[in-house]
C-alpha cells in the first residue's frame, strides 16, 4: 500500500508538470500582450517593455518555464500583473469557494443518485425503474448551463425563494446562496450516478455470494445494503474521482451565471486579459486538485475492496 501511495504521488507530480508545461507553451503561442492590457491604451512602448521585463516575458520560453517551476518549488506562484497581489493568495483565496461548490454538488447528487440507482436495480423493469431511467437520462442530457439559467429564472426571479448571485453572509446565507449553483452543477450527476449504480448493482446482485446469502435466508435489506451496495458503489467512487475534472469545468459556468467567486471565474478572466501568472497558478492548482481527487478515489477503492488492495 505504501509503495502504491508513493507510486501514485510520483505519477501525480509528473501529470501536474506535464499539464502545466503544455499549457505554458500554449498560452505563449497564442497572440496577446499582457503589458498592453495592464497598462491600458495610453502606455508607451517603453512602459510596455518595462512591464514585460518585470514579468520575465522577455526571457526565452525554456528560461521562463524553469523559472516558473523553480518559484513554484519555493511556494511562489508569481504576482498578479494587475493588482500586484501574490497569485498564491488569489488562487488559494478563491479555491475554497470552488471546492465547496463541487463537494456540495457531488454530495447531494450522490445522496440522491445512489439510492435511486439501487432502488432501480432492486425493482428492475418495474414502472418506477423505468421512470427513474427516463428522469436520469433526461438529467444527463440537459446541459447544466440550461438548467442553471432556468433554475435561476424560476427560483430566484419568479418565486423569489432564493438569491440569484453571490456567496451570502454567514453559514445560512452561504447555504442559501449555494442551493441553486449546486443544483445546476449536480443535477446531471444525479442521473449519471443512478445509472452507474443501477448497472453495477444488477451485476453484483447476480453474483454467487449474493445468491448464497439469499439461500442462507438473510434479510433482503441486509443483502442489499451490506453485501451488494458496498461493492456496487466502487465504480461510482472511481467515476466521482475522475468527475472532479468535469465538475471543475462545470463550476466555470456556475460561477459566471451565479456571479460567484471561484477558480472557474478566475481563470476565465485571467485568460481573457492574458494575465499569465494567474492563468498558470490557477491551472497548476486545478490540475493538482484533479490528480489528488483521482488518487483519493483510488485509495478509497483500495480500502473498500480487498481485491484492489491485493492487486497493489
Amino acid at each position, binding site marked *: 500500500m505504501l509503495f502504491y501511495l508513493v507510486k501514485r504521488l510520483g505519477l501525480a507530480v509528473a501529470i501536474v508538470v506535464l499539464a502545466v508545461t503544455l499549457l505554458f507553451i500554449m498560452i505563449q503561442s497564442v497572440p*496577446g500582450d499582457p503589458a498592453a492590457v495592464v497598462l491600458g491604451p495610453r502606455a508607451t512602448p517603453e512602459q510596455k517593455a518595462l512591464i514585460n521585463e518585470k514579468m520575465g516575458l522577455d526571457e526565452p520560453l525554456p528560461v521562463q518555464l524553469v523559472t516558473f517551476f523553480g518559484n513554484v518549488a519555493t511556494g511562489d506562484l508569481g504576482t498578479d500583473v494587475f493588482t500586484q497581489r501574490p497569485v498564491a493568495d488569489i488562487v488559494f483565496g478563491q479555491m475554497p469557494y470552488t471546492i465547496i461548490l463541487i463537494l456540495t454538488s457531488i454530495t447531494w447528487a450522490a445522496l440522491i443518485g445512489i439510492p435511486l440507482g439501487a432502488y432501480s436495480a432492486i425493482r428492475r423493469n418495474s414502472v418506477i425503474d423505468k421512470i427513474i431511467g427516463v428522469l436520469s437520462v433526461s438529467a444527463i442530457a440537459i446541459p447544466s448551463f440550461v438548467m442553471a439559467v432556468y433554475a435561476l429564472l424560476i427560483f430566484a426571479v419568479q418565486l423569489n425563494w432564493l438569491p440569484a448571485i*453571490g456567496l451570502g453572509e454567514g453559514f445560512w446565507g452561504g447555504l442559501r446562496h449555494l442551493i441553486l449553483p449546486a443544483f445546476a452543477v449536480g443535477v446531471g450527476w444525479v442521473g449519471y450516478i443512478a445509472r452507474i449504480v443501477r448497472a453495477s448493482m444488477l451485476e453484483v446482485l447476480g453474483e454467487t455470494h449474493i445468491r448464497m446469502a439469499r439461500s442462507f435466508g438473510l434479510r433482503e435489506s441486509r443483502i442489499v445494503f451490506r453485501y451488494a451496495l458496498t461493492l456496487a458503489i466502487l465504480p461510482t467512487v472511481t467515476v466521482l474521482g475522475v468527475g472532479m475534472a468535469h465538475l471543475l469545468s462545470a463550476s466555470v459556468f456556475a460561477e459566471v451565471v451565479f456571479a460567484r467567486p471561484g477558480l472557474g471565474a478566475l481563470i476565465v478572466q485571467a485568460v*481573457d486579459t492574458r494575465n499569465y501568472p494567474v492563468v498558470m497558478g490557477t491551472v497548476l492548482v486545478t490540475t493538482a486538485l484533479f490528480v489528488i481527487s483521482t488518487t483519493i478515489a483510488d485509495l478509497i477503492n483500495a480500502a473498500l475492496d480487498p481485491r484492489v488492495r491485493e492487486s497493489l
Partner: protein
Amino acid sequence: MTARTRFTLDRRRFLQSAAAGTAGIVASGLPLSQAIWAQEGKVLRVRSYADINKLDPGFYQNAYNVSVMNCIYSGLMNYKPGTDWATELQAAESIEQIDPTHIRFKLKPGLMFTGGYGEITAEDVKFSFERVILQDSPMKDDWGPLNRVEVEDTHTGVIVLDRPFVPLWNVSLPYGVGHIVSKEAVLEATGDGGDFGMQPPMFSGPYVIADWRPNEVLILERNPDWTGQKPGFDEIQIRPIEDPQTAETAYRAGDIDFTHVSLSSLEQLNQRAPENTVIEERPSLYYVYLGMNMEHPKLQDINVRKAIQWAVNIPQLLEVAYFGYADVATGMIAPGLVGHRDKALIPPEGDLEKAREFLAEAGAEGLQLRIDVLNQAKFTTMAQVIQAQLGQIGIDLQIDVQDAGSFWTIGMETEGERWKDMQLILQRFSMVPDPFYATTFFTCEQVGNWNWERFCSERFDALNREATTVQDEEKRAQMYHEMQDLMEESGAYRFLTHEGAPFIYRRTVLEPATRPDGRALYRYFQPV
C-alpha cells in the same frame, strides 16, 4: 435568576404567524428573498461590470475603478450629475483660470484624510498631480502639459501648464488623475510616491473601503472623518458581474438595485419591466467603427476603401445588431461633446451603386477580404451584416472571431507581424468627455500602437495638437469636425454608432446620480 418565557407553537399558531409574516413582506413590496435577508441601514447594492484592480488614481486604467475612486477620494471638482455635461466644485472652494496656462484653486478648509494624515492641503494637491508625471504613469497624458503646481498657502495653489490645455477642465480635474491623495501617506506606503495599486494608504472621500472580497463584493462604508457633504447611503455594495444577462437576473431577483443593461434587453424590459423599476436610456460615449488597414495590399487603393464605406448600410446594421436601440454615429465624438458633427460625409444608408463604381474604378472585382471581430454576439452579428452588405458589391468577406486577449493586440507592431495581415476590423473604444481623448489615438505617432488603420495625416496631427489649446468652443468644435472629415475622407473609417447606455433602478430604493453618459456617481445616490 433568569426569567424564562415559554413559547408553545402549535400548527395553527405557526400557520397564523407565517401567514401574517408573509402578508407583511408582500405588502412591503420586497422580494421574499430580499425581505428575509435584508440588513439594517441604508445599503446601496449595485453592479460593476468587472472587479476592481487598481485604486491609485494616478495610475487609473478603467472607468469601473474610477467609479470607486470617486467615492473614496475627492478631487478639486467633479462631474455634475445630470443629463448635460457640466462640472462642479468638490474639494475646491474656488477654481479659476488666471491666464491660459495658470489655474488658481482654493481648497475648502477642514477636509480630512483618514488614518490621521491630517487636512487636505495644497501641498497634497501638488503631490497628487505632479506624481503622475514624475512617476511616468501610463495616464500622464491626461495631465497634458502640466509643468508644476505652485503652493501659495495651506489651501491655495496654482496649476502651471507649459501651454494651454483645455481638456484639463473636462478630463484631468474631474476624472481619474484629478483625485487627491495624501503626500505623507503615499510616501510612507511606497517610499518614492509610486503606484500603490490596490492598497490605498488613506482615503479622502465620503466613503472608505470596509471590505473587498475579490470577485464577490466590494463594500464601502461612510467615512467617519468626512466633513464634506454627507452621502446618502450608509453602505455601498458593489458586485462585479461581468455578464449583463446575469446582472439583469440578479436585479429581477432583488439582489441588486441598480445596473446597466444591454441594449438587446431593452425591448423585453420595456414590455415587462420588474415592479417599481425605472428604465433610463443615456447616450454613451463609446464609438464603434469599421476600420481598414490602409497599408494592406488589398486596401491600399482608396477606391476599394471608399467602395466598402459606401456599401455599408448603417441603419440596417444597427437594426440587426442593436435591435434598433442604437443611433447612427456621425463620427467619433458623441452628441453633447464639443466637436460632435451633425452629419457624416457619407450618408448612413450608403449607396450600393456608388460603391460598385468605386470598386470598378479600383479594378478589384472578386475581392476577398477578412474582418477581425471580438467574440461578442453584437460584433459577430454586425460582421455578418457587413459580410452580406459587401457581398452585394461582390466582395467576399471572411469573419475572424477573436478573444479579447488576441483581439486587442492585432494591430500592434510590438506583437510581431500580425498588423501586416490585418485588413478590416470592427472597433469599439471608450471615451472620456473631451474630444482630445478620441482623436489622440489616430495621430501618426500612434500608427502601429493604437492607430491600427495606419491613418497618418500631418494636417490631422497639427489640428490635434492645436485643438487642445483653443478655448473658444466654436473654433475648437470646427477643428474636431475637420479632423473627423479627414479620417472619413481617407476611406479607412466608417463610423457606425455610439451605442447607448441604458440602466435600470428600483425607484422604491434609490434615486440615482449619473453622468450624462449614464456612468454612475455612487457618492451622490440618494435613498428613497
